[in-house]
């Protein structure tokens, strides 16, 4: 840490010293650059691996993409498909959106616009950062203990979406808080000065201004939810999704299906998993795209 260079201790810098300083500089720069490129390279390898395994599956093994996208799980890899898993994930994300959006935005609004700066409120905020760090599998245990077996709902899709909603609510709250904080206080004061109540100010002025940020944050939170596997397995998701689920039936999802395929020893299923991952990643890229579009298109500086 405190390595003050000894090169300069001789008093006068000679050319040799400077050359060593320069060489060290170049070496250090190169090391740091390589380290930051490492992550990017790994991301590239990961995408390449998924594409390669998919290509092998489709071109060499002859997995039929149409069958894959239109049928359910099967013991034969030739007839196995992803459709119930996709629909399960769509349901999960929709319900997660409903549960987490209002809860998250309401909480953020309370904390930013209403809450006095008391001990209790600070405790609530500290609790929030802690909740964001709870492992996802624990949220699955919570849903398993309370909803699946406590309230005897059984391993239904609704219980899975509650687990996901609880998991992403802290993310929605933090994103919404940031968006609300970015609204200048002059805007609020202007509204309050016209005689509007706090709620009228929040509903009519602050929330509309913060909406793009809130929407972006919510989409990113949902992108997290759609890739979550562990909580769904804990809730009791069906790993081999054969039938199209509804909110009150047993369910599978894209990530749990991928897990099941990747876990099987028969290698053809790994190619199916790669194809499933490709579908999942495509949807994720789409969600990120929408999020950035919303941010760039609608976010105005006030």
């Amino acid at each position, binding site marked *: 840490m*405190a390595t*003050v*260079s000894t090169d300069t201790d001789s008093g006068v810098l000679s050319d040799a010293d400077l050359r060593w*300083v320069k060489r060290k500089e170049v070496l*250090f720069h190169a090391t*740091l*650059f390589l*380290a*930051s490129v*490492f*992550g*990017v390279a790994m*991301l590239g390898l*990961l995408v390449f*691996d*998924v594409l390669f395994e998919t290509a092998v599956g489709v071109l060499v093994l002859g997995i039929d993409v149409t069958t894959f996208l239109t049928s359910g799980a099967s013991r034969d890899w030739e007839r196995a498909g992803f459709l119930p898993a996709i629909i399960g994930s769509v349901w999960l994300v929709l319900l997660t959106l409903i549960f987490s959006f*209002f*809860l998250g935005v*309401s*909480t953020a609004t*309370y904390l930013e616009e209403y*809450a006095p700066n008391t001990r209790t409120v600070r405790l*609530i905020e500290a*609790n929030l950062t*802690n*909740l964001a*760090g709870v*492992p*996802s*599998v*624990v949220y*699955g*245990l919570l849903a398993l*203990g*309370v909803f699946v077996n*406590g309230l005897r709902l059984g391993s239904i899709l609704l219980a899975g979406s509650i687990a996901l909603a*609880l998991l992403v*609510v*802290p993310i929605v709250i933090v994103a919404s808080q940031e968006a609300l904080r970015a609204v200048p206080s002059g805007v609020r004061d202007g509204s*309050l000065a016209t*005689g509007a*109540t*706090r*709620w009228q100010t929040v509903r009519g002025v602050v929330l509309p201004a913060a909406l793009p940020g809130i929407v972006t944050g919510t989409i990113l939170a949902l*992108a997290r939810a*759609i*890739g979550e*596997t*562990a909580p769904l*397995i*804990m809730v009791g998701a069906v*790993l081999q999704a054969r039938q199209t689920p509804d909110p009150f039936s047993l369910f599978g999802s894209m*990530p749990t299906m991928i*897990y099941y395929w*990747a876990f099987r020893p028969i290698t053809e299923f*790994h190619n199916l*998993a*790669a194809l499933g991952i490709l579908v*999942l990643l495509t949807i*994720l890229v789409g969600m990120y795209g929408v999020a950035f579009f919303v941010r760039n298109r609608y976010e105005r500086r006030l």
Partner: protein
Amino acid sequence: MSTDATTDPGPGITGDVAAADQRRDRLIRRVLFGCTSITVLTTIAIFVVLLDNTWGFFFDATFSQWLVRSVTSLTVEGLTQRIAVTEFLFDTEWRPSHADDPRFGIMTLVSATVLITVGAAFVSIPIGTAAALYLSEYASVRTRKYLKPTLEVLAGVPTIVYGFFAVSFVTPVLLRPVLELFGLSIGRNNVLSAMVVVGIMTIPMVASISEDAMRAVPDDLRNGAYALGASKYEVSTSVVLPASISGIFASYILAVSRAIGETMAVTLAAGATPTLTANPLAEVQTMTAYMVTTMRSTAGVGSITYQSLFAVGLVLFLMTLVANLINDYIKRRYREVYR
């Protein structure tokens, strides 16, 4: 704070309407507070569910069942202990489904989690810190604009995909050929590949948060060092790093906490064989992997296997809780330094 408008409703607003508005405002305030308290309720619910069911792991009934039974019968109902706490904490075997002699020594699972977490830290901490230094001190504005979001994409990839990457690429293509040069063989599931992928997925956490801390270091400090003739290397290592060390440390804790709770990548990469070992080529089972693989075979409610999920979950939750609290503490101190 919110009563600014009550004293004078102003022209055109009758007192009645203003009063109704105020009443609505108070109602909304209460509803919003209700939503906020759900977050606190979630934490309480996690604690209660884990503790209640862990009680049911050690005894033949969960705490709530026992309480209800005792209250309804107006006597303190007896409890039969199923597992000794000492066995849970100190036994070196974890074999819950063994027919004759099932053993529940959590150490085996904890050691696997710790092993992978430490290995992942060896990947993510040096690489993440170096990337952060590069982004904050060396990269041009343009490079930074593209490099940082690209690195952050790594954190957005679902962990199940990392698990797939570990078994289909890291182990067979990267690790096996290298290890074979040294005459070592490696199975499909191994600790090393789990370390690598968990390390990769936590790089962006370290890089991103450390970089924020480094950028918060005032330029005056850098300029002072440059004025003394320091090179960029010296400024980076002797000025920026020490000045942002608490923020950097917070990012390490966060990465560790994330690695402890990591589930799917570890389940796929490291396997499902509980082993008490420090051998990075072995197949092990972490706490999270135990939970997921046990749920696969749907354990019946009340059975010792089912209850063990919560006991393991409690240990996992406490470990991440401690990490998060340390992180909180460091972050609060760090904020004070630069305000």
